[in-house]
C-alpha cells in the first residue's frame, strides 16, 4: 500500500516538474520574443528617422555655399534644391518626398525632368522643409516616428563664427 502511494507521489511530482519546465520554457521564449520585438522596433524607428535626417544634413553640408541651398515648392511638394557649378554649367540636386519615398533628382538646371523622374532613396511618409531664417533650415520628417532637425547654413551666416 505504502509502495503504491510512494510511486503515486513520485509520479505526481514528476508531472508537476514537467509542467514547471514547460511553463518556464514558454516564459523564456516569450520574454526573448518580446525583447527582440522591442529592439527591432527601436532599430526601425532610429533607422527610419535618423538615417533620412543624416542623409539630408550631409547633402546640405556638402553643398553649403552661399546662395546654393534653397527650399522651393514644386507642384505642392517641398523640395530642397542644392546647386553646384561645374564648367560654367549649373547642376541641381533636388531632394523631396513623393509617393511614400524620399527621392533625389540630379540634373542640369532647366533639364525639363519632373519630380517623378527622381530615384528613390528610402521610405518616408512626409517631408517638410522650412527656411526658418537666412541661415537656418528646418527639416521635419514623418515616417515610423516624427523627427525634426535644424541645420545651420555656415555659408549664409552673417559673421565668421566658429
Amino acid at each position, binding site marked *: 500500500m505504502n509502495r503504491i502511494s510512494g*510511486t503515486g507521489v*513520485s*509520479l505526481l*511530482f*514528476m508531472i508537476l*516538474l*514537467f509542467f*514547471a*519546465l514547460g511553463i*518556464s*520554457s514558454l*516564459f*523564456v521564449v516569450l*520574454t*526573448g520574443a518580446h*525583447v527582440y520585438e*522591442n*529592439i527591432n522596433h*527601436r*532599430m526601425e*524607428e*532610429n533607422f527610419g528617422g*535618423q538615417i533620412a*535626417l543624416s542623409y539630408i544634413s550631409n547633402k546640405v553640408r556638402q553643398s553649403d555655399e552661399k546662395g546654393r541651398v534653397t527650399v522651393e515648392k514644386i507642384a505642392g511638394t517641398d523640395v530642397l534644391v542644392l546647386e553646384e557649378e561645374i564648367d560654367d554649367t549649373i547642376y541641381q540636386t533636388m531632394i523631396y518626398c513623393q509617393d511614400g519615398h524620399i527621392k533625389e533628382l540630379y540634373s542640369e538646371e532647366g533639364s525639363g525632368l519632373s519630380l517623378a523622374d527622381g530615384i528613390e532613396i528610402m521610405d518616408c511618409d512626409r517631408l517638410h522643409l522650412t527656411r*526658418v*531664417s537666412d*541661415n*537656418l533650415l528646418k527639416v521635419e520628417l514623418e515616417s515610423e*516616428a516624427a*523627427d*525634426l*532637425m*535644424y*541645420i*545651420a*547654413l*555656415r555659408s549664409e*551666416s*552673417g*559673421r*565668421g*563664427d*566658429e
Partner: protein
Amino acid sequence: MIRNNYSKSQIFLLEFIIVVLFFAICSTICISVFMEADSISKESSRNVNSLVLAQNAAECFKASESADLDDYYDFDEIKDGHYIAYYDGKFDSTTEENAEYILKIDLNEMDEGVISAEISIFETNEKTAFYKLNVDKYIGEQN
C-alpha cells in the same frame, strides 16, 4: 555486493530534477542576456535622440545672430544664463511635471566676443548629464 535500493521511477525523478535545475540555470543566463540587450537598446535609442536634440540646439545657437538662444529654439525656462527645456520619454516637448529628460544650456562669455554654450541632457531623476556637447560661437563686439 552493493544492492541497489532505488526504484526506476526514483532514478528518473532524480534525473528529471537535474534537468530542471540545468534548465533553470540556462534560463537565468538567457533572460539576463535578453534584459541586458533590451537595456543596451534603450540606452542606444536614448543616446541617439539626445544627440539629435543637442545637435538641434547647437545648430539654433550657431544660427542666431545674437547671444540669445531662444531666437529659434523653444525653451520652457530661462534664468541666469541657463536655458531649460523639458522632454517626455519619446523626446517630445512637455511640461516640467511630465518630463523624463531635461535639456539645459549654460552660456559662458569668453574673451574677444566668443560665447560658449554647454549643452547637457539629464534624466529627471539623475543629477549628472548623460550627454554633453560644447559649442563656441563668435558674436563679435557687442558694445
